[in-house]
């Protein structure tokens, strides 16, 4: 299967032709899919304990604002579990040239870090053989057991040699704030391999699902995601991750972007008076944020191309936004309409240019 390469030569080319879709989700139909990639001990462990799998129910599938309704086929496979279907949906139908797979299987919430490490390795091998190997347009994020940063770094070292892995996936909710030194071995490995860190909503249940505590309902959790990102951006900047790893980049997935400019403004203002707390932050936080952070467009929290232009203006950079579909999830607006309405040069940057500048896509997919 191959995608049309030049949008303009194709009369009926879909509007996102050539786009890099930085947030596509795939899933296991059943935990048994991992068995070929688990060693005998862990395979037997799962079987003997009768473990049904490690799905997290981050997105109750039939909940509104969750899985695209057209993908919920009662008689078909669970959404996003078949590589050919996913490739057809996110690449062939849209014209996108590249899709980055982010696996949300529930590794990070578990308490057993060795099981988490074994599952991470298995998931990465599963991604390689079952997904990346069947379509050269696919790329993937490395799954890591963030419970143990040393094991996570080892998994990055093991996996990054394969050029189809283009980033490391973490979650906005972990056992502690992402700026803490606990996680630095992960950042060290990611920087060494030239891979950004993606931060996705949800994650460990060892931390409340809103910054203020446990939400009672799905809507409360869903709406509060951006506040978790808020706290993580501040932590990553203040704890000196960017001073220590100057080449590292973070990609904030599925969290909108309109919340960031007010944070940058306030962060700069407060830093001027409070910089003694963190003297290694030796320049305005907004400068660091513009340099080190990227944001995916789905779901976009501004209205239309005008809203998006205003947002880009407020961010003070046209290099921060990356197009994403968030397949198979759907929100009120994946943002594609707004992106397509941008002036040519900006549209090109958001659809693909910014992602190509960020990700080592030229290391190659499979086949």
């Amino acid at each position, binding site marked *: 299967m191959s995608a049309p390469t030049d949008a303009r030569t194709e009369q009926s080319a879909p509007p996102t032709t050539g786009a890099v879709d930085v947030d596509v989700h795939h899933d296991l139909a059943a935990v048994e899919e991992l068995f070929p990639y688990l060693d005998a001990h862990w395979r037997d462990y799962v079987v003997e304990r009768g473990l049904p799998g490690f799905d997290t129910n981050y997105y109750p599938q039939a909940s509104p604002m969750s899985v695209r309704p057209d993908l919920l086929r009662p008689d078909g496979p669970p959404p996003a579990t078949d590589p050919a279907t996913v490739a057809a949906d996110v690449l062939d139908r849209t014209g996108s040239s590249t899709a980055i797979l982010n696996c949300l299987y529930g590794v990070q919430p578990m308490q057993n870090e060795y099981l988490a490490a074994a599952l991470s390795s298995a998931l990465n091998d599963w991604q390689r053989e079952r997904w990346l190997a069947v379509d050269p347009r696919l790329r993937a994020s490395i799954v890591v057991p963030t419970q143990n940063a040393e094991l996570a770094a080892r998994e990055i070292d093991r996996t990054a040699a394969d050029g189809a892995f283009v980033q490391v996936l973490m979650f906005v909710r972990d056992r502690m704030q992402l700026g803490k*030194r606990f996680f630095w071995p992960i950042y060290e490995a990611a920087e060494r391999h030239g891979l950004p860190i993606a931060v996705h909503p949800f994650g460990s249940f060892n931390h409340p699902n809103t910054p203020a505590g446990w939400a009672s309902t799905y809507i409360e959790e869903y709406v509060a995601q951006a506040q978790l990102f808020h706290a993580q951006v501040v932590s990553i900047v203040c*704890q*000196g*991750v960017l*001073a*220590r790893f100057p080449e590292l980049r973070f990609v904030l997935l599925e969290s909108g972007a309109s919340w960031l400019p007010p944070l940058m403004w306030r962060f700069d203002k407060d*830093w*001027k*008076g*409070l*910089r*003694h707390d963190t*003297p*290694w932050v*030796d320049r*305005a936080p907004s400068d660091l944020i513009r340099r080190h952070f990227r944001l995916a467009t789905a779901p976009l929290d501004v209205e239309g191309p005008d809203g998006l232009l205003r947002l880009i203006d407020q961010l003070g950079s046209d290099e921060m936004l990356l197009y994403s579909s968030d397949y198979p999830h759907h929100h009120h607006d994946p943002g594609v309409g707004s992106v397509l309405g941008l002036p040519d040069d900006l549209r090109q940057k958001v659809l693909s240019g910014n992602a190509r500048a960020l990700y080592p896509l030229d290391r190659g997919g499979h086949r």
Partner: protein
Amino acid sequence: MSRHVVARTDELADGERKIVEIEGRSIGLFRVGDAWYAVRNTCPHQSGPLCRGYLTGLLESDGPGEFRYSRRGEMLRCPWHGWEFDLRTGQSWVDPTRLRVRHYETTVEPGSALLTGTPPVAPGQRVPGPYTAETYEVSVDHDYVVIEF
């Protein structure tokens, strides 16, 4: 350019300050060791009373968790929002090229020189002092701090 005698050198110990008013402007005079600095008591940010803030040191860092503290007592931190200014240059730490507080040249001169008429101070004259309603008594026995204005 006029010269204003604003203090006797033994009035202020190391680390002390005095706020004076010259031609309607509030100015802070600081003693750091044997150096004297004078800066406008109006913060360039939002006009806070800068010279009433803490005198602190220069805090720098070579990396996360590392604190390099030097030049103790030479950085002035505004009491309103904490912006820091270098007493020596008036430059703000956060934006040194664009933001600085007005600072003034100071000299220390013996009373004898002031009285014997290094211009523009005429011999025997009382030198106009820092308080609009007063003049500053200069005597030959002391050294004085003079602000060039």
